[in-house]
């Protein structure tokens, strides 16, 4: 299972696949205010990204992987929310 769901935190595995989008969404629905730890994530399927963008859970760690970190930070880390209108 690429996401580990524990209490109120979903921790991503190295690879988040398209199938994980549904389980992540279900977890976030069942645990309002749950946080997401993307630290270990190195590949992220668009469907999972879409869930993150739509639900906007609190991200406690961005992926350590450089590409994801670089391009997800503006979209997922709200403090410097820019680049969209």
């Amino acid at each position: 299972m690429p996401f580990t769901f524990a209490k109120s935190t979903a921790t991503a595995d190295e690879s988040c696949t398209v199938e994980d989008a549904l389980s992540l969404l279900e977890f976030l629905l069942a645990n309002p205010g749950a946080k997401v730890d993307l630290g270990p994530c190195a590949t992220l399927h668009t469907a999972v990204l879409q869930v993150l963008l739509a639900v906007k859970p609190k991200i406690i760690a961005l992926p350590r992987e450089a590409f994801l970190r670089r391009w997800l930070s503006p979209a997922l880390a709200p403090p410097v929310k820019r680049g969209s209108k």
Partner: protein
Amino acid sequence: MGTPLLERFVGEARDLLQAAASALLVLEKQATDEAAINDVFRSVHTLKGSVGLFDFPAFTKLVHAGEDVLSAVRDGKLGLTSDLVDVLLDVLDQVGAWVDDIDGTGALAQGADGISKEMTARLRTALPADYGAAQASPVAAHAGDLTRVDWLGAIPEAERLSAFRAAMIGADLQAIEYVPLDDCFFSGEDPFILFRQLADLHSLVVEPTEPWPSMEALDPYRCVLRFRALAAAPPVEIETLFRYVVEQMRIAPISPHALVSVTGGASGSPVYGDFVDQARPLVLAGDWSALKRAVGALLQLTAPALLSASALRWLEAVLTAPAPDKGWVNALIDCIAEGEEDLHPLEPRTPPSADIPNLAAPIPTALGGLSPTAARILQSQRTILGLSLPAAGLASRLDSVARTVENFLASEGLGAAESTAWSAAVDAAMVEGDCAPAIDLLDQWLLVGGDSTEAVIAAVMMAGGDLPRSRPEAGEHLGHEIKQASRILKVDQAKVDALMNLIGELVVSKNSLPFLAKRADEVHGSREMSREIKELHAVIDRLAQEMQSAIMAVRMLPVSEVFDRFPRLVRDVARKLDKHIDLVIEGGDTAADKNIIESLGDPLLHIVRNAIDHGIETAAEREAVSKPTQATVWLRAFQESDQVVIEVVDDGRGIDPEKIKASALAKGVIDEDRAARLSDQEAVNLVLIPGFSTAAKVSDLSGRGVGMDVVVTGVEKAGGSVTVTSKTGEGTTVRLSLPLSMAVTRVMVVEAGGGMLFGIPMDHIVETVRVHRDNVRRFKQAEAFVLRDAVVPLIRLDHLLGEQSQVWFGDGSEEDAVLVVRVGGNMVGLMVDNFREGMDIILKPFDGILSCIQGYSGSALLGDGRVLLVLNLKELL
């Protein structure tokens, strides 16, 4: 022979060629047989795909042309005439010959290019004139909407700056907008992942195309995202990356200045006025390094959020260019001087539109946009082609020009359409032996410039049409025929043979156990041990037999392996002789050992040729005796106990016994006395006698001085027999009867010549009897005995083998062991010293110097290490 891949290819190619040829013949009879059309098309198509893995251009081109013709046939644009079938069969034959070359030498035979060109041209002439054109048109346009790039300003300045800097040092900036289909996940797509592959990504914004629904209403598998990116990658690279989703994405080149906007809080500090005064002379003087230092120093002092800081950052970026644009530098200095926001400070008076063309439209690679150097290259190639040269030099000249232009197209990053058009033009030029098509295409490129697509299509049409074209997929829904495909393992025959040999050895070793048991009893006096060994022998014997039949099953092939070549043969021979013949094949799936199947080929070929050549009358002759003008030849196979029976039946004129007798008399095969006594069937049997041929004249088909005796020899070598029956005026049946397998032979071991062992094939043996010496009758030198009212000649095996007869002991009441065998329809009694057991042996034919010894089929190794000689009774008697 080359790599395993090449070996695999050779095997596969042969299968495909056979399948194509068979389907083609079906098609010739029944032009509307869709399954056959698809079969032949698919075979050739697959062959084209496979050969493309190797470097055999002549092969590939010819198969490609064949595929085009078949495609036209399949699309109903081309009728399949007998002549066209001839051409296609010739092509298949040629390709088959090349496959043999590849198998033998790993390369095509010399002259393959010439043959390929000649045959390709023959095929192309069969295509309707407008075929290429009709096919080329669907390349057509899918004009997309043009969208303005109005989102550049929304990109964070830092990202725009980094892109701008990249552009200053020569990068090619592209704006990309990609809106995946909302069901894209169900096509296995992952849009986000594509951007990971983009070489130099400067900005990526992912947004929803519509407001997000509530969490509860969110469908995680409906994609509603829009991706906007700025990348410094050549358009070709981006197109390649997004090629599966071009309809959903747009791309536009971005001029660097479009990225620049100067925003921020105003600042009235006089320091900026000083900077402006200092900077202007530096710009005039072109002293960029001094200006850079001044910009750098002031930036340090300026709060980043200020308008002047923004302007300074852009100025710094502009100055990273090796030769900064003075206009831009001045414009930015103006911004600082004026202290006002300017979203487009560097916009030229007539702003170039930043419209995004849709990628699905015809690729707008205008050759007109070439640099002078590039244009010169094309021009020079054009000139070379225009020079007059002896015809012999044409091919090599065309070849070198073709390569130069191909490289040129590739280096200019031009689309596939151009290179396809070019190779089509070159092919046409090769075929015509005239450079005109290639010259014309170059001319079009050089003169037309601009929108090349139409010109290219026109050129391709002119060149004979070789654009990739759409082929509607007819008959892919053979629903009724869906069956579980068998899993087939292709194994080298040598491996199966090795297994067979091992089993043979196992059988031999196993056969030594009874000897061991006997020794245990007789020499070591242990009856119990003997019994145990015998029990063990029984078990191993059963396993070995099962193993043997399993491996024999592996070696079994359907008779269709041989039959498949006959439709073609019958067709060709019939056409040559102008006879109308329908070939009916039955029981093609009857299986027999591979060796048997292979030994069938030549005899059958001969019989069928005979039937068509001699048996079948001409249409006129048939009409005269009120037979249908269309004759029929049946090729039948079926299994009869442990024999496979092949029958070749024709409804021709039959064999006239009187003619045969006359002919045999004339040739001195029989004398008049005998002729008078011959029954009709016996007369017919004469055709099987060596040297006999009834052909009135020697035709090039079957009358090569070899008659049916060749068939008889071939079949008997494989342990089979041949019979011929015929009814005058109604037809002839030739029946071949062969063992299902010749891997294992069951023999009876007999003693003769004073203790020597001989094997006699079980299928000859009728029975074993003991004959009272008093009952042996003598007629002159010959002996005979009566077996149930029949007189059976008696032959002493010792005599046959040139051994001295055993001296008679005892009196007339002694009995002799006689093996009654049937050879060629006659019963013979073979007197032997003693009968021994029957056994299964792996018969090894004599080879080398021994192979010319008559009278023996071969040898086998016995369990106790002795060699058993197996007799060939037909040769002996």
